């Protein structure tokens, strides 16, 4: 039998255990409580609109004919992929535009980053100059380049003329308009890739590269086998962000070509805007937005897997 003293001790111990348990629970809860406001805001601004957009994509709902949305199942998606040449053209343009601009930006951006990494004198000034185009608003960039691409008084055709080349109707024909859009976007966005890759290069210890060179690796081998794998995380970030930016490109094309000639340079972003705000088709434009979202997600996941497999290899 327990003495009264033991009993008190046990009761105290039980109270302490309960208190400890509660304290532990509270400590475990704290991060979630601290995260809650941010999560709530994210839910309101990100998750809720996303869920609504996905739901809307299965409905027929017009802005000019409000009322309960009529659920139509996969009808919008069937129309998108079987009966809408505008979507087909737009998707094809968006994919080509994304692939070509990302490729150009990555090659030029990497070259610029490597060059800037070598610069020791006035490096910050050179870096600042290199990122100037990125500071120009997309709308302004589109308008500036619109003048540069002009057939009769544009700088590009003037320069071509100096080499005895015939002027090109840059914005009035399908293929030149595509390249005009690609070059303009590359000019505008390459500095972003340069900056991210430069940050990655700066973080690589020079000792590792030197060790590789001492071991007999050529400059290219050192870059290919040592620098590039270590640059992979920064490259992945740059690629994913740029891919997402390119897939939803809108403003620079809007001012540069207006989606023309015809609808030859209409990206999905412009098509969504047109379908929603000019045709007032809420459900159908949501379906295009969902396709764009899936496209971005699939490409981003593919990048991550490819690049990390490369690093592991």
């Amino acid at each position, binding site marked *: 039998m327990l003495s009264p003293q033991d009993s008190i001790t046990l009761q105290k111990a039980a109270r302490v255990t309960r208190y400890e348990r509660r304290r532990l629970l509270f400590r475990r809860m704290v991060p979630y409580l601290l995260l809650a406001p941010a999560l709530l805001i994210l839910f309101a601004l990100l998750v809720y609109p996303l869920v609504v957009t996905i739901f809307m994509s299965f409905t027929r709902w017009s802005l000019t004919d409000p009322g309960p949305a009529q659920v139509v199942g996969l009808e919008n998606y069937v129309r998108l992929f079987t009966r809408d040449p505008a979507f087909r053209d737009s998707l094809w343009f968006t994919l080509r535009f994304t692939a070509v601009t990302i490729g150009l930006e990555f090659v030029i951006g990497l070259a610029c980053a490597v060059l800037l990494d070598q610069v020791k004198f006035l490096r910050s000034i050179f870096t600042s100059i290199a990122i100037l185009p990125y500071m120009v608003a997309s709308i302004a960039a589109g308008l500036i380049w619109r003048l540069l691409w002009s057939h*009769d008084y544009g700088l590009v055709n003037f320069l071509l003329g100096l080499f005895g080349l015939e002027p090109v109707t840059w914005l*009035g024909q399908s293929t030149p308009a595509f390249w005009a859009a690609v070059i303009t976007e590359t000019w505008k966005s390459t500095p972003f890739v340069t900056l991210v890759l430069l940050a990655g290069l700066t973080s690589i210890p020079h000792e590792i590269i030197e060790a590789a060179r001492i071991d007999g690796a050529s400059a290219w081998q050192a870059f290919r086998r040592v620098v590039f794998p270590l640059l992979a995380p920064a490259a992945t970030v740059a690629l994913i962000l740029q891919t997402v930016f390119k897939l939803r490109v809108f403003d620079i094309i809007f001012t540069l070509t*207006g989606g*023309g*000639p*015809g609808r030859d340079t209409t990206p999905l972003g412009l098509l969504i805007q047109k379908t929603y705000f*000019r045709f*007032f088709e809420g459900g159908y434009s949501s379906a295009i937005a969902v396709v764009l979202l899936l496209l971005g997600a699939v490409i981003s996941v593919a990048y991550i897997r490819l690049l990390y497999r490369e690093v592991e290899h």
Partner: protein
Amino acid sequence: MKSTRIFLTLALALSLALTAFAARPTEAAPALQGAKLTLLIHPTLFAATGGDTGIVREFEQATGATVEVVTAPIGEHIEKALVEFIAGSGRYDVIAMQGVEMNSRFFQYLLPLDDYIARDGEDWDWADIIPSLSAIGAFEGQQFGIPFRWGTQMLYYRKDLLEQMGVSAPKTVEEIFTAAKALTRDTDGDGKTDIYGLVQRGKPIEIAHDWLGFFYGAGGTMLNEDMTACTLNTPVGAMVSDMMRNALADGHMPPDFFAIGRDDYITLMQQGRVAMGVYFSPYWGRLVSEQDSTVGPQMSWALPPTEPGVPEGRTRSGGWLLTIPKDSKNPDAAWELVKTLTSKENSLREAVEFSNGPVRISTYTNEAYLTLVPMAEDVLTSVANSLNDPRHPFMNQIMEVISNEITEIVRGNKGSEQGLADACVLIDEILAQTN
């Protein structure tokens, strides 16, 4: 006792009378003191009221009301209006809407203005507003919009170049394309064209607007009367399309035609790089501006080209109306603002001082306006005879189809008949959704 009662009654009556007198606004007190209005308007239209220092501010000073002005370009403009319509928020008290937007989908959100017009119509001179324009703001016997700015298309040309080449101002659609050929010139002999005979807009949607101007002038119509069938696929449609395609292919229009929009058109005209073009009448002031145009004094105008048998000056016209949403929190004050912006005196000022496209007959016949805009009489003729795009709720989709198909025709990817037939198939599908 009785005298006390009489005294008290008189005192009460006197105090009531004094209170009523004190509470009554004095003659100088503004009529709408404290009223708050929000006006949603396109920036060009707001500029046509005199902008920040113009008629809206004068209205505030005269009435005591405050007017918040929200400006938005086409596209965003209707988006802003629609969101508030659907929410029923009453955010805007007066909204400027395009004529083509005055269709069955939008009337449900607008306040009928018939009672106001019946009350004030005589003093405000409702009958002076061009009746065909007023009709665009009406639906099923009710008036929902008051015309504010209207324009038609005019043929603008360089009289010096036409004289040099011995060409008279073209009168028919065919003549305009023939003249374009004669007026296209390599002035310095370097093998490159320095002056193009004709400029029109080729950017998406704008190409449809300019093509329709010629098409209406050639006697065509977009839809049948009850808006159930497309009527583009006709010989005149093919003729206009062929001429446009040939003018581009033969180098009589600037090669970057498909990139030319409103501002490019005006710039090319101001720089003297083109000899002719058919475009919106209110832009006359910009084409002859001493500040902006290098060839202003050489500019002249004529009625837009029409084919024989088609009413003189027929082309595509369009404009804006002022409306009051049915959810407006202050419709009476909103009506006062609409009335002020469209009064006889202010309409004249807007036209003379701020280059607005007039909607009142009295403006077109006013001496001051005629001096400033010598083509006013021709504009009135054209406005009276022109066609507005049908007020179909899916007009934006229809315009997109026309834009795409005309682009395909003009760049030679499709024959005219094929392109117009394809356009009609797609348009009929769109029409079937509402029939």
